[in-house]
């Protein structure tokens, strides 16, 4: 499973595909204060991205992969990382 759910924290790992959209939607809906950790995510499908944009969970760690860090992170409110990307979780 590219997304591991751990109580109120979802860890995105490696390439997260459209397959995860339904479980993610259900989890976001069922979790009172969801938090997500994108640091290990290398690819994020649009279906997942739009769920994150809609649900606005707290992002405990932004993506570290270069493309996601530069373009997707800001859309999720993690700010633009200092270049080169690769700051620690936080």
């Amino acid at each position, binding site marked *: 499973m590219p997304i591991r759910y751990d109580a109120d924290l979802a860890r995105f790992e490696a390439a997260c595909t459209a397959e995860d*959209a339904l479980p993610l939607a259900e989890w976001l809906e069922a979790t009172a204060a969801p938090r997500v950790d994108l640091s290990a995510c290398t690819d994020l499908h649009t279906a997942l991205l739009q769920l994150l944009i809609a649900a606005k969970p707290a992002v405990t760690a932004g993506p570290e992969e270069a493309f996601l860090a530069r373009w997707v992170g800001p859309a999720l409110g993690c700010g633009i990382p200092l270049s080169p990307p690769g700051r620690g979780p936080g």
Partner: protein
Amino acid sequence: MSDLFDQFVVEAQELLEMAGAALLALERDPADRASVDELFRAFHTLKGASGLFDMAPFTRLVHAGEDTLSLLRDGRIAMMPDLADRLFRALDQCARWVAALEAGGALPADAADAAETLVRGLSGRAAAEGAAAAAGGQADGFPWVTTLTGEERAAVGEGGPTATLTAIDYTPDPECFFTGDDPLALFRRVPDLRLLRIEPAEPLPPLAQMDPYRCILRFRALSGAAVEAVTHAFRSVPDQVRIGSVTLAPAMVPPLPVPPSATLLLPAPQGSLAAAMLAEQARILDLPGSTAECQSRRAAVARAVAAILTALGRPTDRGAVAGACGDAAALRRFLAEGPVEKPVVAGPPPAAASLPRRALRVEPERMDALMALVGELSVVKGQLGPLVGRAGDGELARDMKAFSARLDALVGDLRHAALRLRLLPLARVFDPLPRLVRDTARRLDKTVELVLEGAETEADKDILDVLGEPLLHLVRNALDHGIEAPERRTAAGKLPGGTLLVRAFQDKGGVVVEVSDDGAGIDPAAMRRAAVAKGLLEPEAAAALADADAVRLVFAPGFSTAAAVSDLSGRGVGMDAVRAAVERAGGRVEIASAPGRGTRVRLSLPLTLSITRVVAVEAAGSLYGIPVALVGGVQRVARAEIRAVKRAESIVLRDRVVPLVRLRRLLGQPDDERQRAADCVVLVELGDGPVAVAVDDVGERADVVLRPMTGVLRGLRGYAGTAVLGDGRLILVLDLRELL
């Protein structure tokens, strides 16, 4: 006007359907002149009809389609899958618009933009050409570029203060996830990406109402690379993206956004457009063609002319118009003489034979009420039999018997007729399949021939509703996991193109739909391994499974066989959902597969949901019903053959160990005290294997109207509802899945 509008909606739906079918036929055989003509006519008629209403984007799009088709008809362009894709997208868009028109009377707000992108896709022919045209000075096609924040400008502006950049405006098709697109991923391929704005394309719905498989984002981006290079990255979605070069002016004076180029075809003043359209209708009549072609043209022209005249405030008798549409000269004369001055024709209406067959729409509640009455009538009639029996042997009794027999037959006929009212041909659920197969096969680079058989088979509307989703899933699954890629097929000594057969037929008391493919089949050994790996089965249990049972594991919840779940089928609607849907409707699913030769899935459904066939069984003096769809057999089993380990009992049937449960215990009744040599056992097929249910006695099989539990009884689990037998006795129908 509103009548005319309604008529437009109905006609547009028909025309779009026709066009879709013709397009499919044309793609299969690009030399099929009749289909080109039909397609052209459909677009042409739509253009004419839509021009009467305030829906410029619609007219614009079908006009662009018509232009493309006329090039195709003249042989100036060839039918390619890409072109078919674009035409299909245009048709889909029109269908969505017609649905919106039917629901709300107006096109959605984004219609102009949507038309714009689709028209571009159609007229651009090749994405590069379109991009070149866009580069030709359409900077103001991207008004948002002028509204960049200072921060964004700073991030973008590495190329100097007045840099020429390439702007990208990408609104993915909401359904694009289903065709495997990942819009965000496309931007990874954009060279020198300077800016990427990700925004919702529509107001975000609350999370609970969000459809996770519908794309609702819109992307706007700037790149430092040339238009051609950027266009290349979006070559798979030419109709959803606008690409053009923009100049980032140093000053922040926002140029007025120019409305989408209005020059193309927006309705000219009503009068002149109508006149042009009428002239066009006459021209169509002049076109050469076979008798059948001319006839259908005449009908279309008559419809268009009548609609145009009505819109011009000159409602004209349809018969008169149809009469005038015999040839071009007659029509011109008819129009020139002007039907305006003529008094409304007061003569007898045109021959009734020309009236179209019209479907009667009936509220479903009324149908249900009728069914319920017929059900009650059957029950009351059933009570007549015993009464006649008590009347003795006299003449009166004989007459009553004859009367009762006639009543029997009539009630039977009545019930049959009432049931038939709800029947519709399966064509309804088959219709989306050709398009689905075409799109999916194209996306997967497979060649697949779809064969549909038995579309005329009829089933209850409720059953069709149940059948739709599972059927789509099975077909998708067969294309995705069943039929192999052409290279693999050739290597295995098969024809490179696969065949998918969807066959429907009537079976005893039900309807059967089979989906068979000649693909890779399912390997039972792989299924066993997967079941163990997923922790669904212990290794020993898996090894003990018969091959057929191992294949059935695909229906187990949480099971997916493909090593890497593709984005196509892997979206939470597994085979277990297919099974659940079919079983909820009282049907069953069977699967047979031969590795290397193919897979066949068979869905058996009852003819109707309103009547259930049950076996009456007795336990502790009460009668219960078990749906026949679940019953695999009834037999007596000698007590000696029942093996008991503590309280768990089992029997061996056809070389299989089958668990045995006693209905009395399930229902919390005391055990049967009587000493009996044998038990009466009903073999019930549940999803995860057969179960033997021991009952006191097995009675008749009967068709009953199942009434769900209501009121305080609704919470009662284990019962599907109540029903009345033919002799008036009440039974409880068991929901064994819940009980076991």
